[in-house]
Every structure is written in structure tokens, then in C-alpha cells.
């Protein structure tokens, strides 16, 4: 029996008895970041493949949500900071060792990019749209001309953004649950799946709806594979990681994780996507709501469970 008592009564606020430094803003920020990354990724992908006309929801309509998502995300990040007047310090330094730093910079690249993307596609939403000044018209013409280049920058930066939403956690080896490189690809997949579900819902044609239902199905499969991998890795690792995994295998996060994230957020939408592809009339709003719900719950659970997992010495 080993017992550890802190005699001097260390009770530092938000640190003891267990870490609670990150509340809802961080998982929310990572969720909207992931969703934005997913939508932009497919917008760029379909443009690069020259399929703009077939996949209008992916390339033209869904990206209009992205700037709002990113602004909400940056707002949440700001709310999370304890020393708000010094917020600008984040943008006077670039530290590649710090995911918080390069992630914030990635957002700074992706946000204007998404606004430019909306600007060059606004003519499809308002066919009579005219830019007011000559210089704006020239700028618009310039961006339209370089649409392909923008799409390439966007596909790369949105992938980085998607991976970052997982790496922010996995870079912390102090929290055994987070300290796994699988979180990067897993959160990227979760963001892509959320993006695909939104596009499938917004899709105007049968082709677009079914293509994105297929894509979503494929990504959910990858996610489930990565989750199995995650737990295999934990269980074959050191004692602290075995204990971290036990939070989900009998511990307090077992029910929320397996029921909300895996079953409702992945398995059920996968079945719905499958039925839809088989020709059953499934409203695409259903898988979308479930995937988004699963994706946001996943990030909340990982954020909170990770803070509860620690080294004992």
C-alpha cells in the first residue's frame, strides 16, 4: 500500500486536487478549428481535382461558415487566457517547439485565407454581386486568377490546422492520456468527418450528397481503427498510460466515451450513411447532427480526462 499525503495542504486553485486549467473554451476552440479545417480541406480538394461544378456545396457554399467558425474559435481562445491584456504577445513570437504558438499562427493564416475564399465565391451566392471600388475588383480578379494556388495553400494549411487540434494535447507528456501521437491523426479525422457531414447535408445534388456520405463513412472507419490503435498503444505502454486508458475502460469516462462519442457519434452515423447509400431515404441532417455532436463531445472528454490523468510518484 502506498499513500501520499500533501502535508502543507497544497491547494492551489485549479491545480489541486486535480488539474482544471482548461475549461470549455479549449475543447470548443479545437472543435470549431477541426470543423473549419474539414470544410476547407474538401473545398480545396474538389477545386484542385477540377470538380468545382459538380461539388458546389463543398467548394462554394459550405466555406461561408468557416470564417464565423474561426472567429468563434479565436474568441474562445481569448476567453481562455488568464492574462488577456498581453494577448498580442502570441503574435510577436513564433516558437515552433510550442504547439500553442504555431497553432495560433496557423489560425492567423487560415482565417484570412477562408475570407478570401468566400470573397471569390460570393458571386455564386449573390449573382448580382459587384465589388464597389476599382481596387477591390482588381484584387478579386487577382485572387480568381490564382484560385488554384490558394487551393493548394488551403489544403496544406487546413491539414496542419486539423492535426494541430490533436497535437496541442499530445505534446504534453505530463498528462499520460494526451501523450500519444495518435491524437493528431485522430482529431484530424474527426474534423474531416465533421466537415464531410456538413457538406453532405448542404449538398445540392444527389451526386454530392452520396459522394460525401461515402467519404464520411470511410473517415469514420479510419477513426474507429485509430481509436482501437490508441487503446492498444496505451495498454501496451507504461503503468501511467495503462491507468490513463482505464479512465475509458471501466473508469469514470467509460459511458460518455463509448456511448456518445463512439456509438452515437461514429457507429450510428456510419450506419445511416450506409443506408443512405443503399437508397433508403435518410435525411442527411441526422448523420450531420450526430457526427458534430460526437466530434465536440470527443474533444471535451479528451480535454477533461487528460487533465485528470497524471503521474503518481
Amino acid at each position, binding site marked *: 500500500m502506498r*499513500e501520499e499525503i500533501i502535508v*502543507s495542504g497544497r491547494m*492551489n486553485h485549479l491545480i489541486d486536487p486535480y*488539474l482544471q486549467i482548461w475549461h470549455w473554451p479549449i475543447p470548443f476552440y479545437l472543435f470549431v478549428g477541426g470543423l473549419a479545417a474539414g470544410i476547407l480541406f474538401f473545398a480545396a480538394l474538389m477545386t484542385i481535382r477540377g470538380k468545382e461544378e459538380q461539388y458546389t456545396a463543398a467548394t462554394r457554399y459550405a466555406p461561408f461558415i468557416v470564417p464565423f467558425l474561426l472567429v468563434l474559435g479565436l474568441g474562445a481562445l481569448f476567453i481562455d487566457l488568464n*492574462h*488577456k491584456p498581453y*494577448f498580442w504577445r502570441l503574435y510577436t513570437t513564433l*516558437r515552433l517547439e510550442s504547439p*500553442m504558438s504555431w497553432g495560433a499562427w496557423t489560425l492567423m493564416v487560415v482565417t484570412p485565407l477562408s475570407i478570401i475564399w468566400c470573397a471569390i465565391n460570393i458571386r455564386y451566392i449573390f449573382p448580382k454581386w459587384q465589388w464597389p471600388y476599382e481596387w477591390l475588383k482588381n484584387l478579386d480578379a487577382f485572387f480568381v486568377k490564382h484560385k488554384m494556388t490558394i487551393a493548394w495553400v488551403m489544403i496544406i494549411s487546413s491539414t496542419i490546422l486539423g492535426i494541430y487540434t490533436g497535437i496541442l494535447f499530445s505534446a*504534453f507528456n505530463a498528462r499520460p492520456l494526451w501523450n500519444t501521437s495518435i491524437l493528431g491523426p485522430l482529431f484530424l479525422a474527426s474534423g474531416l468527418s465533421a466537415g464531410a457531414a456538413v457538406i453532405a447535408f448542404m449538398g445540392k445534388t444527389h451526386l454530392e450528397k452520396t459522394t460525401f456520405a461515402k467519404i464520411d463513412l470511410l473517415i469514420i472507419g479510419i477513426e474507429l481503427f485509430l481509436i482501437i490503435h490508441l487503446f492498444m498503444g496505451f495498454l501496451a505502454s507504461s503503468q501511467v498510460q495503462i491507468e490513463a486508458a482505464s479512465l475509458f475502460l471501466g473508469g469514470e469516462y467509460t459511458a460518455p466515451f463509448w456511448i456518445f462519442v463512439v456509438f452515437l457519434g461514429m457507429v450510428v452515423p456510419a450506419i445511416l450513411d450506409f443506408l443512405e447509400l443503399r437508397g433508403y431515404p435518410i435525411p442527411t441532417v441526422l448523420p450531420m447532427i450526430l457526427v458534430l455532436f460526437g466530434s465536440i463531445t470527443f474533444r471535451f472528454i479528451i480535454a477533461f480526462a487528460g487533465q485528470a490523468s497524471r503521474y503518481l510518484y
Partner: protein
Amino acid sequence: MRYAMAIDTKKCVGCSDCVVACQTENNVPIGYCRDWVVEVTDGTYPQLELEIRSERCNHCSNAPCVRCCPTGASHYAEGGIVLVTANKCIGCGACIASCPYDARFPHPDGHVDKCTYCNHRLLEGLKPACVSVCPTKCMYFGDLDDPNSEVSRIIKKRKWKTLIPEAGTSPELYFLI
């Protein structure tokens, strides 16, 4: 120069004088502490073993808190001391989450706070407050690069351990066992 501290777990009686001295010296906000005392009981009754440790930031030489800080507020100062520059810190909490020892806390003013090895006293040639008040003289502080310093000599002579070395932080706080 490489500052380090060695704490004798066989001499420490867990009086918490070091905790109070630090709170007074560094004006630590009420309800918080930069150092604390841990009592560990091991074994099954009646074969019990007791270890008392006065703990604080380990001033790790491979510090994850410095690595993950987005602004450079957390940094290495002279002698490897890990410090936080308050007016560079945005209070993002990344360093708090990255420390396996939970040695940092959010100061009510917004920035992050932690043990400084009493850097301001070192500059005046004094020892850290905790070291200078300890009634059992169980703490040794000095420069590890100097083979004749108190801390170098005691580490050479005695058996010691560091905390969670497997976390890869290379801690510079030695516990004599």
C-alpha cells in the same frame, strides 16, 4: 553555472517552515504555495516506511514548460533557473498542463507563478528563503558545476533520487535518501 538543490528526506521533519518562508519572502497570494511538503507512507502495517519531502519546481534542464510556452515568457535564466516573465505571459495555461509535478499555478493577477529559487536573493549572494530557514538544515543549495559547492559534495557522498525521471524532464532537485 548550474544551480541545484538537494533535500535530505532523512532529516526533514515536515514542519512546513520552508512553505511559510517562501510565502512571506515572495508575497505568494493567500491560498497558494510555490513549495509544499509531501509525506509518503509505503508498506503494510506494521512494516511502514515514511518519507517526507519538501517539493517545489525542479528547475528541469529539459523543461517541458519552457518548450511549450508560446510567447517565451517561460525561460531559462542564468544558472538554469526556470522563470516566468509576467508581462510576456498570456496565461494560456500550456505550461501548467505540461509540468508533470504540478509545480505551477495561475496567479490571481493572470500570469503564471512558480518557484524562482529566490532569484532575487541569489543576486544578493543570499540563499533561497526555504533553505535559509530550515530548522533541521536539510536543504543544500549551490552550483553543481563547482565540485566544491555544498550541493556537489553532498550529492557525491549520499544516495539520491530525482522525481519522475521517466518523464524526461531532467530535474535539478535532488532528494537524498
